[in-house]
């Protein structure tokens, strides 16, 4: 939960820091974490352009409240921001579709990086894409980010039991889908 990561007034949304600067520690964090976060966002969205926006927004949000964030917890804060940003992205596109009923340039999918994978890897990624959003998030955080159940629960703001059941169902679905494809 983000609240636990914030030093000082827990979880408060601070006023924007007008003229706030990127100090060295934040720049170092940016250089170290940008690529892993970008990869995480791509694994969750399949859209490098949208992933870049989500990661940029996460860093901008962190920068705005950098003075109130425990630097040791900043990487977790960023990871949670990226996961939430991806959810917001999907939610926003769903809301826009419901209200506007028109196709925007954002709706056009970008090039699919997965075409560059081997056939076996591509099968796995395509099967992963068919899973419900939470199952996919849990599996990506577990098997790519290598987070523990507790860390995933914190990142997704869900109970550990939810993480466990989502992982179990996600793996079972993958097993079935990949098995089915081999049979064909």
């Amino acid at each position, binding site marked *: 939960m983000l609240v636990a990561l914030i030093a000082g007034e827990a979880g408060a*949304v601070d*006023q924007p820091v007008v003229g706030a600067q990127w100090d060295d520690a934040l720049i170092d964090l940016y250089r170290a974490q940008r690529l892993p976060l970008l990869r995480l966002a791509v694994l969750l969205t399949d859209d490098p352009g949208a*992933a870049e926006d989500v990661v940029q927004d996460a860093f901008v949000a962190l920068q705005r*409240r950098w003075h109130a964030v425990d630097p040791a917890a900043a990487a977790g804060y960023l990871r949670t921001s990226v996961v939430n*940003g991806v959810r917001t992205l999907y939610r926003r596109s769903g809301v826009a579709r419901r209200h506007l009923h028109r196709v925007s340039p954002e709706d056009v999918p970008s090039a699919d990086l997965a075409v560059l994978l081997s056939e076996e890897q591509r099968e*796995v990624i395509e099967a992963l894409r068919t899973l419900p959003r939470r199952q996919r998030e849990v599996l990506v955080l577990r*098997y790519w980010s290598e987070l523990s159940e507790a860390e995933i629960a914190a990142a997704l703001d869900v109970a550990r039991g939810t993480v466990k059941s989502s992982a179990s169902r996600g793996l079972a679905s993958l097993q079935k889908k990949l098995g089915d494809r081999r049979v064909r």
Partner: protein
Amino acid sequence: MSDDLERRLRDSLRAYAELVDAPDSTAPPTRASAQPAPLRRWRGAVLAAAAVAAVITGSVWFVDGHEADTAGSAASDVSATAGGPDNDAGAAAEAQDGTMAAPDEALSVPASPVVGVAYPFDLYTHCGIRGAELGGVWFAVDPPLVEGAGNPPAGWGNQYQRGAVTLLTADEAVFRDDAGHEVVLLADGSARPAPCD
């Protein structure tokens, strides 16, 4: 679950991730920070509308002239219930359909809202769904949901819609209500719209 499946999943995720190149630039991102609103015109309009309704309905209530204090007092009622993400069910359940004219006291968020907490909230809709002030920062709906010459879309209350608002990050929030509406709000530094008639 088979170790083979887990191995395949790890390998595939790793290979997929490694297709994402290192960005060219190592410069940190920049974006205009959401500025604190210099004026409190919007909140003034909300309070004025509520005051008019109070006069019409014969109810009496008091508004402190200092806007920050007003926000604080309205928020304190809400923050007392704001123990976690689950708290929206209770307070927001007061309005079953979420539609309303002007409440005696519009629900707002505390001056320092907590990320992840759902606050019961009266979204001002009179001019269309344009945004909300959360913790002193204007969060805009992009694009605004406006019907005709400045009304909320069909199915929304007017002048307010009761629901719950949750900060997803420091500059993103979502409003949801029991009617199924869901609106994303972004603190993007845009100018707060002027009050409408």
